[in-house]
């Protein structure tokens, strides 16, 4: 398992390099630059700025410089927040995003798995149909629609929760963004769990468990849950990616000072290094999470061995 992990880490290098290259050149292909302001600066100042940030060098040389910096763990300076490096901005924004993302993931797993199991146990009955209809709705409605609706209901009409901002980072402020972020994932995980649970419950070893005279909850929790969760575990990687993309939108709507908001503003301001930094950071995060998911698989299924 250790050797496998090392191999996977080494394999992640090329993946990330391709990611960096794509992001780098796409960003540069977009029209405009970091110093195109509404009020034009004098050519001399502009030339100075470009020299300071090495924007006067040939593109390939800039790319090489950037990658070399990455290898040293240096994401470079931000173009828009002159006193900050990208590393500092990530360090500031990521904990906020992580908090929201982790809560959303937790909520998605707990609610999704529970709803999926309940639907599977009431297969083809009213409760099942209800849960699955709700899930289908949850999947179909994008979170940039759900978020304003939640704000409208809980912040404007009921006035229970703040309609935006991060405040002191307490649960009150987190509630709506977390729910908006988690809802589509709850729906997806519920459908996954239901499908695999229905299948597992039909398998011969479940019949064996029932033939032993085990109570129904033991049969479900001890015998069926683990195999039924395998598809959910393999979805954790894509789910993380979905939460990250979702957070970009959600943080914008709720005005939360997370990494997603930095990313959007960076992209609008052509803050090349900030956008690249966030892309690389999240890319690495997803690679690592996918590795953890694969290793988790071996823990859940004793027949899986990695060499």
């Amino acid at each position, binding site marked *: 398992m250790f050797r496998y992990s090392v191999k996977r880490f080494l394999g992640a290098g090329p993946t990330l390099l391709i990611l960096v290259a794509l992001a780098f050149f796409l960003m540069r292909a977009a029209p405009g630059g970091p110093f195109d302001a509404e009020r034009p600066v004098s050519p001399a100042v502009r030339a100075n700025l470009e020299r300071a940030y090495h924007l006067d060098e040939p593109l390939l040389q800039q790319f090489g410089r950037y990658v070399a910096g990455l290898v040293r763990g240096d994401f470079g300076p931000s173009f828009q927040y002159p006193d900050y490096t990208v590393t500092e901005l990530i360090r500031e924004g990521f904990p906020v995003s992580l908090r929201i993302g982790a809560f959303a993931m937790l909520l998605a797993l707990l609610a999704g798995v529970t709803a999926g199991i309940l639907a599977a146990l009431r297969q083809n009955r009213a409760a099942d149909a209800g849960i699955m209809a709700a899930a289908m709705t949850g999947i179909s409605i994008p979170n940039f629609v759900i978020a304003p609706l939640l704000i409208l209901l809980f912040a404007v009409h009921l006035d229970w929760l703040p309609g935006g901002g991060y405040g002191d980072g307490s649960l009150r402020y987190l509630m709506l963004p977390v729910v908006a972020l988690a809802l589509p994932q709850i729906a997806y995980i519920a459908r996954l769990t239901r499908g695999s649970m229905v299948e597992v419950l039909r398998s011969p070893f479940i*019949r064996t468990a*029932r033939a032993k*005279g085990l*109570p129904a909850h*033991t049969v479900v929790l001890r015998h069926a849950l*683990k195999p039924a969760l395998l598809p959910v575990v393999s979805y954790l990687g894509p789910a993380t990616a979905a939460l990250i993309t979702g957070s970009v939108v959600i943080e914008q709507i709720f005005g939360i000072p997370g990494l997603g908001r930095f990313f959007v503003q960076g992209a609008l301001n052509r803050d090349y290094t900030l956008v690249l930094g966030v892309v690389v950071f999240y890319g690495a995060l997803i690679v690592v999470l996918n590795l953890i998911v694969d290793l988790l698989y071996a823990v859940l299924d004793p*027949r899986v061995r990695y060499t």
Partner: protein
Amino acid sequence: MPVIGQSPQYSEQPLLEVRHLDVRFTTPEGEVKAVDDLEFSLVRGETLGVVGESGSGKTQVAHAMLGLLAENGRATGSVRFAGEEILNLPAKRLNRIRGAGMALVFQDPMTSLNPYLRIGPQLSEALMAHEPVSGRQAREAACSMLDAVHLAHPRACLRAYPHELSGGMRQRVMIAMALICRPRVLIADEPSTALDATVQARILELLSELKREFELAMLLITHDLGVVAGTCDRVLIMYGGRTMEEAAVDDIFYRSQHPYTRGLLGALPRLDAAGVSRMAAIPGQPPSLLEPQPGCPFEKRCDYRFEPCKHQRPPLENVSAGHRKACHHEKLP
């Protein structure tokens, strides 16, 4: 004065008594009657073989008795275990009998053990579900049970996952699991079918040995008359969900009065039949249970068929004491 040599069923109350058992499945193509008016009983220490080809409903009998039918299945009739009606009991009450009073060994040991759990917990949980034992006592019981089914390294086995064992070993584990609560009735559903021929013989030997040791009544479900010969006291021949013939094992082999039983016997491969290159078989296919026929289910494939077979269902009639058959012919040549 008791008659010597008579089957013990007349001297004792049966442990298991099945009457008018019907099993129906609702399918998209219509209703299927997998078991039709089945009747049999089992006394202590007796082994009854239930024989039929695939699709004859024999497995559904086992599943129906313990409430293990698939979602779309429904059983009606009566199943009495030790005098108590158990058919269609709610799962909670049935759980007292499942495993503890009546246990099941399934056909395919590859898929019938949970691949995600170690052998040890799978064995001990069966005991702990029925008896107030500690985890430690249950583990010890599991270990001695594995020893009783002659697994070489019971302790190592307890820690193994099913995929780390061979097919024969897994079936031994299944048997140990079925017997750990000392049930009075063991239902073995094709216990040797999924195994190699040599392993088959050993598993059957083991079952016979354990049957004596644990004083079990056994329902042995099989498609193989060869298996029946060495292990059973009585045999019930099923076809199309119905009983064709039921008799003591010798009566089945030497005095069969049903064309289907004779067909099965004729299809047994023989070592002494030198020069015959093709195996004998009953021509035709088992009937589709979707279109129930008014007459005898075997009519289309039967060499002895005559007019009544097509329209009239042959009743199950006594041929002699303990020997019954469902055939319109008074006596076969």
